């Protein structure tokens, strides 16, 4: 940016230096036109025909014409002051340009500068507003972050409480289950024991009854059978003891 600005400033300065170096005052040679021509002619004549006076004399030329030429030479302008007409035209142009610059250019430049300054001020204000907004957003983010941390902490606490509660519930349920399993096991054991006792009793009874039946069967001879029938008849008749 700085280099570009320096190049923009250097270009008109170089143009101004070139103008001052190569531009000379218009027609400011320091010699008149007539003298210049006379001197040139004199040099040409002397180179080709020798002495000028003699040539002029042989040609019957009035030598006073040289004086005439010398009198007729235009006086050289001042190397400092320009010609009057140039002063007039240049001054007029300068005045016109100056007036134009004062009336049109300067307000335009000043307006552009004011617009530029206003734009810069606006940009600065926008930057300031953006900074304020950024600070607001940052504050908002920080607040949210703080809220999130707080919420996370609450969630962790709640989760810890819930975990403790769940742990307690599971332990309690496990104790209940263990107690129920213990009761069921005790009931099963008792049932199995009762069933085993019943089975054993039934088996013992079967064995005992089998033995008794065999004893009874062996002892049931004809006489016993007859006595049993007689006892039955007496029982039916209601005459037994």
């Amino acid at each position: 940016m700085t280099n570009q600005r320096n190049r923009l400033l250097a270009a008109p300065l170089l143009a101004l230096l070139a103008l001052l170096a190569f531009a000379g005052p218009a027609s400011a040679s320091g010699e008149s036109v007539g003298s210049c021509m006379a001197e040139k002619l004199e040099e040409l004549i002397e180179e080709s025909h020798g002495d000028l006076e003699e040539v002029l004399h042989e040609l019957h030329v009035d030598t006073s014409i040289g004086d005439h030429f010398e009198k007729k030479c235009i006086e050289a302008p001042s190397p400092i002051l320009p010609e009057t007409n140039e002063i007039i035209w240049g001054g007029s142009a300068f005045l016109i340009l100056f007036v134009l610059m004062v009336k049109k250019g300067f307000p335009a430049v000043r307006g552009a500068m004011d617009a530029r300054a206003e734009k810069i001020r606006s940009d600065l204000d926008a930057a300031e507003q953006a900074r304020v907004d950024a600070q607001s957003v940052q504050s908002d983010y920080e607040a949210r972050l703080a809220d999130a941390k707080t919420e996370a902490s609450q969630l962790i606490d709640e989760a810890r409480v819930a975990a403790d509660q769940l742990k307690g519930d599971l332990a309690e349920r496990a104790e209940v289950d263990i107690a129920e399993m213990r009761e069921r096991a005790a009931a099963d054991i008792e049932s199995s024991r009762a069933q085993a006792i019943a089975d054993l009793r039934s088996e013992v009874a079967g064995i005992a009854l089998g033995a008794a039946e065999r004893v009874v069967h062996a002892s049931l001879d004809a006489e016993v059978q007859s006595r049993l029938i007689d006892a039955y008849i007496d029982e039916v008749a209601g005459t037994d003891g």
Partner: protein
Amino acid sequence: MADSRVAGYAEALFAVAAAEGDSSVVEDELFRFAQALRSDNDLGSTLADTELPLARRLQVIEDLLDSRVSAVTTALVSMVVGAGRAAELPAIVDAMVERGAASRNKTVATVRSAVDLTADQSERLAAAINTRTGRDVEVRVVIDPSVLGGVVTEIGDDIIDGSVRRRLNQLRESFR
């Protein structure tokens, strides 16, 4: 249908027995044969086997009953078997016995015992039942070894159980 058929056969048997003379003897012989059929499944199935020639089945009856029962009894059994009703013979005989007892104004008392009762015991038992129930009964003895000892009397739906088997069962129940 089956009940009416059984009743019809029973009535026919009773009529033939009555016509031939002492129906109570025929009833008693038929009753014992019916009990033998109940206790011997092979005999029952043989007599009921229609694929077996009738002459063969009648020959079996002849071999079993000839000279042991009256000719009327043998003829009645042969008639029922020849009619293809051997499987229903026990029920027919029961109905005939009841029909005969009813004709004498009596009720049949089925007595199950491991050994046969003497005539005196049968008469005393009939008298005892009469004393107890007020009904005049005819005692029909069924030999049943499972009774072991004592007597089981069935009069219609009433049962008087004085068997050794019942006492052993009571003893078995007391162990439980």
